[in-house]
């Protein structure tokens, strides 16, 4: 007989094992889905997860795709660790892109080494401003940050729509919804000739290092951890909860804003209606898959990034519908949440004889 028993303490080994298990189960379920759809499962999985990154260019595209996911997820982990549910990273990304894009347009056709840093900074500030709205409403008016931050995503997209259709649209662009292409002085430099991977990756790596330091080496990190376990304990210990809520939201917003900067001053080079294919939402999966640990998030962002690339390759070479990429992302989160059950419960085999 098998009995399910509650663990006395969540298992540390299983804590880091379940993401791997979730990925394995996703691959298994994906293979079964491919089989049911009439595709050869192993070939399909090969085109999904191996072919896209088999060459130098493919690998650079993987890093390009993972950069914003990693950056946003790092930011989100500050919020999630401390029990602040910022679901609106997509909005903070968009608003960061708006502010930095506006600055880039302001410097249109100008040269100067100082332009790019200002553009980047503007993006971070834009993201922070936007993240401060749900933070302030939560701390002073006790609103639900999940709802506020989520709703603000749609507001930011409407603001972007308004700007690219109207006042910021390209004067030579026949009123199509896009701005001018930014000047080179406002673009992130490319790292290699012929590849799209850009200097934004250093921002992501810096975020990884800084977050690791904050989480594990500072008093703030400890406060966040305690608040994450129990808000009451944190209050009892005398931590200034309000200040911390605002701080983690600001960090999270800055990271999302920087991800937006990376997209528009990197591969896109202008503002238009679709600066992000919902990176802000996908990064939530990345953050949890990476267990809110900086190193885990690096791996998680690579795994999730490949589902985007793989979906394209699988459609081009095997005519598998591209939307299966989203199915994979959904499955990863689903299996992760499901296998978290093992964190708190264990199976006990009980022999028949007494």
């Amino acid at each position, binding site marked *: 007989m098998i009995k399910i028993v509650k663990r006395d303490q969540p298992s540390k080994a299983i804590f880091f094992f379940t993401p791997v298990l979730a990925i394995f189960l996703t691959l298994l379920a994906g293979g079964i889905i491919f089989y049911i759809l009439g595709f050869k499962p192993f070939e399909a999985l090969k085109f999904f997860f191996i072919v896209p990154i088999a060459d130098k260019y493919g690998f650079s595209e993987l890093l390009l795709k993972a950069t914003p996911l990693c950056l946003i997820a790092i930011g989100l982990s500050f919020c999630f660790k401390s029990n602040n549910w910022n679901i609106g990273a997509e909005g903070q990304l968009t608003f960061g892109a708006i502010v930095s894009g506006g600055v880039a347009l302001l410097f249109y056709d100008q040269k100067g080494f100082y332009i790019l840093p200002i553009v980047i900074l503007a993006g971070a500030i834009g993201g922070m401003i936007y993240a401060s709205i749900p933070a302030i409403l939560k701390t002073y008016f006790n609103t639900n940050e999940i709802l506020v931050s989520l709703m603000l995503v749609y507001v930011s997209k409407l603001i972007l729509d308004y700007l690219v*259709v109207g006042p910021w649209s390209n004067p030579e662009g026949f*009123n199509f919804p896009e701005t001018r292409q930014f000047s080179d002085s406002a673009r992130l430099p490319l790292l290699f000739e012929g590849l799209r991977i850009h200097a934004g990756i250093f921002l992501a790596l810096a975020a990884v290092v800084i977050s690791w330091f904050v989480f594990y080496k500072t008093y703030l990190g400890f406060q966040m951890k305690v608040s994450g376990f129990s808000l009451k304990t944190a209050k009892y210990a005398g931590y200034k909860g309000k200040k911390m809520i605002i701080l983690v939201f600001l960090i999270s917003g800055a990271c999302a804003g920087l991800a937006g900067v990376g997209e528009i001053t990197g591969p896109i080079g202008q503002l238009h209606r679709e600066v992000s*294919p919902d990176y802000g939402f996908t990064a939530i999966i990345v953050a949890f898959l990476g267990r809110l640990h900086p190193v885990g998030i690096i791996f998680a962002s690579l795994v999730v990034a490949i589902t985007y690339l793989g979906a394209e390759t699988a459609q081009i070479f095997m005519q598998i519908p591209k939307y299966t990429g989203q199915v994979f992302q959904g499955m990863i989160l689903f299996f992760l949440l499901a296998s978290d059950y093992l964190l708190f419960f264990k199976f006990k085999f009980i022999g028949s004889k007494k």
Partner: protein
Amino acid sequence: MHKFLIRSFVSSLVLLFTLTVAAIAKDVKAAFVYIGPTGDHGWTYQHDVGRKAVEAAGFKTTYVEGVPESADAERVLRQLANSGHDIIFTTSFGYMNPTNKVAKEFPNVKFEHATGYKREHPNVATYAARFYEGRTILGTIAGTMTKSNVIGYVASFPIPEVIRGINSFTLAAQKVNPNIKTKIVWAFTWYDPGKEAEAAKALIDQGADVIAQHTDSTAIVQMAEKAGVYAFGQASDMDKFAPKAVLTSVENNWGPYYVDRVKAVANGTWSQKDTWHGIGDGMVVISGLDSQMPNDLQAKVKKLQADLASGKVHSFTGPIYDQKGNLMVAEGKTADDGMLAGMMTYVKGVEGDIPK
């Protein structure tokens, strides 16, 4: 003898190889990049119908659906160009800059961009359809069939393409019924069944008894069916989704153009151009007319269709006035393509302002 055998074997291998290469080179492969799902029964669906026509003509095709206009478009294009495709059709405006960027790197691959204006390299062509001609016909029908004299119009984005459609529609409706008003709701989306249905409902609540649309889903005609008002199908024949409401549809018929261009690549006669075809060239097709339309209206529509095709009638024939009463096109003149391409003012009879 021994050497001779080996040599002839090798040379026959080489010959075989060259022959295969030549055969492969003649096999033109076409790729299509779609903004939406092929099952949207609108914009993307019709492009995919065109792709199937290319297949039927004996060419291999590939497509990628749901490609966002973000940084991802460039990667998809590069991958298609890299994997042996000779001609790539990019079927949404937002692919304009990525198309031109990737075209520069692959001078031997032809690129065809729909609805854009940039042809920065000799291997980039652009194409679009004169949908406004179809809307002249819809306007004629709407102006005749309305009883409330309020016509609703669900618009997507305030760009010349859409403004031109609203104007063409309104001008035609006014011609048969000077009392009509066109009310616009901007959905700010090309494809979002929920939003589109809401927009249609808002217009019906404001008294519109005929709804036109410049968005891609079937939600609007279905909403019209429920509310018992008339509507028109967009991009594909939407009659089966709302048999009572849909009076006719304006279909985007890309097939002939696609087959033509892929064949041109195969024959080596492909060259850069800017195509803007209408009813006359068969790129814009009017579906079957609903039997609820009186016979004289049906006859009138048929004649108008023939006249638009032959060029005897132009959708924008003066005198045309804007909302403030300023003359846009003088009597006896027609709007030229330059004016049409940049049209950003409403004609008289359209209610409201263009969102700025």
